[in-house]
């Protein structure tokens, strides 16, 4: 049995999902688009699955997520729908309910946050609401796990009995009513053919839903009849088709709420939110507070907790590596296999795994910021800055995280409500210089710009942002042209985050990363190890050898970088190992030049000039992100071709920019 969970954003949908299900979640993407759905077994009910659909306000086709939900319910035919409704915001929530009821599937309404409503001396006449809507209604509090057992029992029962909504008609007599009925008759047979209720087909057709109109295969004659009915309705009601139907639904909802809901005009929670917002979205305090909050999160993640955990993890991995190393030596394992295990697998996967604490700590804070409702405020405060590049304020935090590490930053794009914004943001994140590139900057500035490190670094960061802005401008005119998704967003009341959903999010992101660390990233590590330790005749060579396949690759690539002023094969090779992680650029250079990190700066002066050092820095700033980030991009884009496109595109942008900078530097220096 499959149950679909549908509801508005901020209705407590994820909390309810976590209450109903165990830990065996499976995250999947819908085919073709990067909108995810989570499927999980329902706790205590064998062979029953719950599908968490995107948080939406409406199932109109022109909102991507709405379409996903609609198609899922029509095509996948779940046995029942749970529609979760925020009782403290019942009017707007019921709008989606009315649209869902038209789909004619067994459905139960979970009236959430009843504790909050009652805490403000509010109440809902559950029986009357159920009667008016024609579907069972269960009052619950997902956060407190109240009523959740009753809910799932009733849902299973409703699904078993295949009990459809008892009414689908919510209009009072009038032009809208007449129009819907006329159109219902016209589309009846067609609707039956594609397996949707005629009432649903009728309202979709009236609202000019092109997908449905196409699927129904209406004749010209029928289309004309429909058009006639719609025009008549528009003239009589003095509202256009979309407004007329929205008006019809909201009028019904207003009448029902009048009868069934008792609610104070402003709840304690609303008052509290207004008070918190006096500071957090205050004209003068908003931006300083935001900087302080994000500064704290970054400090905790990259300095205090995350870094410490990373160091401990690295120590642990080092210890295991050493033990295995000793054991393998004692066993007398073939030195090549030994090197594969120690230098390839352990070194590679080990260095990638040290990202893990950063991801966990960062998502701990992000989950709290999201769950409390602060992220919406950030979007509200920062929107104006990002609008100029065709994005909305929602993209601000993911991009900011990019300065720490691209991997969690790209993962964080998941919360963006539109697919377009999500993709565009993740393409821009690699331009935000991540913290792993700092060692590269440090070594090169020490060698070529002593005492000017601060200025050079600042220029590099600003350079990355500028290229990102230009890229965004170009992207929003080409690949992402067309109407950007409007920035119309709810500002939910501030709420205490639930420990469970924070932990679930941390676990989900960590698990996702671990899986990739041991698959894609593992393979990449072994390949790189192979290239570094073998020559073209597959003889083993030392890692600083000029005859290894990697070195030959570096020499081969060198002419490509000649116009940028750094044709030395060692530099090219280090850029290749930089794919593994950006820190590897410096360690590889050290190995290939046979010097320690301290002497590296001096050694680099032998193969780079100030001018070519600048272009090398610019290239390192902008070229492809590391394999961990690439695998994250692939996961989010759900396409190998597009991911390769991103990597190649990024290298081209880096080459071009470095070339321009090199030419300009030539004029100045």
């Amino acid at each position, binding site marked *: 049995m499959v149950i679909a969970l549908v509801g508005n954003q901020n209705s407590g949908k994820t909390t309810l999902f976590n209450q109903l299900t165990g830990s065996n979640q499976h995250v999947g993407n819908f085919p073709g688009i990067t909108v995810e759905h989570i499927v999980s077994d329902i706790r205590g009910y064998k062979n029953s699955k719950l599908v968490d659909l995107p948080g939406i306000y409406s199932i109109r086709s022109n909102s991507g997520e709405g379409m996903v939900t609609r198609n899922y319910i029509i095509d996948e035919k779940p046995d029942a729908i749970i529609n979760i409704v925020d009782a403290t915001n019942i009017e707007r929530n019921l709008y989606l309910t009315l649209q869902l009821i038209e789909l004619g599937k067994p459905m139960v309404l979970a009236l959430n946050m009843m504790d909050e409503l009652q805490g403000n001396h509010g109440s809902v006449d559950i029986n009357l609401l159920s009667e008016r809507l024609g579907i069972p209604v269960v009052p619950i509090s997902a956060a407190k796990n109240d009523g959740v057992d009753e809910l799932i029992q009733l849902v299973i029962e409703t699904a078993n009995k295949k009990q459809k909504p008892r009414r689908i008609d919510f209009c009072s007599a009038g032009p809208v009513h007449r129009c819907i009925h006329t159109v219902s008759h016209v589309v009846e047979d067609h609707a039956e053919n594609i397996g949707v209720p005629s009432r649903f087909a009728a309202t979709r057709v009236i609202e000019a839903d092109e997908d449905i109109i196409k699927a129904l295969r209406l004749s010209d004659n029928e289309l004309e009849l429909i058009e006639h009915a719609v025009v008549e309705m528009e003239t009589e009601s003095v509202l256009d088709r979309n407004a007329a139907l929205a008006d019809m639904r909201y009028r019904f909802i207003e009448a029902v709420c009048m009868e069934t809901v008792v*609610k104070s005009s402003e709840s304690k929670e609303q008052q509290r939110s207004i008070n918190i917002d006096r500071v957090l979205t205050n004209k003068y305090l908003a931006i300083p507070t935001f900087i302080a909050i994000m500064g704290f999160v970054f400090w905790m993640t990259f300095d205090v907790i995350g870094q410490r955990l990373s160091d401990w993890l690295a120590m642990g991995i080092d210890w295991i590596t050493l033990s295995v190393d000793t054991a393998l030596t004692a066993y007398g394992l073939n030195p090549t296999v030994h090197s594969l295990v120690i230098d390839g697998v352990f070194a590679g996967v080990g260095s990638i795994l040290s990202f893990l604490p950063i991801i966990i700590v960062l998502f701990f804070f992000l989950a709290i910021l999201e769950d409390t409702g602060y992220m919406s405020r950030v979007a509200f405060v920062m929107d*104006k800055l990002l609008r100029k590049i065709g994005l909305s304020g929602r993209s601000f935090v993911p991009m900011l995280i990019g300065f720490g590490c691209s991997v969690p930053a790209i993962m964080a794009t998941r919360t963006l409500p539109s697919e377009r914004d999500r993709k565009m943001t993740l393409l821009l994140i690699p331009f935000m210089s991540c913290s792993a590139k700092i060692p590269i900057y440090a070594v090169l500035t020490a060698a070529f710009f002593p005492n000017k490190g601060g200025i050079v670094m600042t220029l590099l960061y600003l350079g990355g942002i500028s290229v990102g802005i230009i890229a965004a401008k170009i992207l929003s005119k080409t690949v992402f042209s067309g109407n950007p998704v409007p920035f119309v967003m709810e500002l939910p009341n501030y709420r205490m985050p639930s420990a469970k959903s924070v932990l679930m999010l941390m676990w989900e992101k960590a698990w996702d990363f671990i899986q990739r660390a041991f698959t894609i990233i593992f393979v990449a590590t072994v390949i790189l190890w192979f290239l570094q330790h073998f020559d073209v005749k597959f003889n083993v060579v030392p890692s600083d050898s000029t005859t290894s396949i990697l070195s030959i690759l570096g020499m081969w690539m060198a002419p490509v970088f000649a116009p940028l002023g750094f044709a030395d094969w060692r530099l090219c090779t280090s850029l290749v190992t930089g794919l593994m992680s950006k820190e590897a650029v410096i360690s590889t250079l050290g190995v290939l030049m046979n010097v320690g990190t301290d002497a590296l700066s001096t050694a680099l002066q032998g193969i780079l000039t100030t001018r070519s050092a600048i272009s090398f820095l610019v290239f390192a700033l902008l070229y492809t992100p590391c394999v961990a980030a690439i695998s994250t991009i692939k996961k989010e884009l759900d396409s190998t071709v597009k991911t390769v496109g991103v990597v190649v595109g990024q290298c081209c942008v880096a080459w071009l920019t470095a070339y321009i900078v090199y030419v300009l530097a030539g004029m100045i220096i």
Partner: protein
Amino acid sequence: MTLDKLPIGKSAVIIAVGGEGNLRCQLLDMGLIPHTEVTVRKAAPLGDPIEISLRGYTMTLRKDDASKIEVRPKEEV
């Protein structure tokens, strides 16, 4: 008068919702339909977007988009 011009702290009743396509549908879905009462709460620190409350909840939209919504300011009582 359009919604973007409504002074902060003032309430008004929506007369008509303009705009087109996606934006318009989203506004209607969020309950911004004729006869609905809205109150402008504040503007973002950079002057745009604005925060409004209606139907017992709070939302934000850009001034550009708000300028498509025709409102009638409520008389002071």
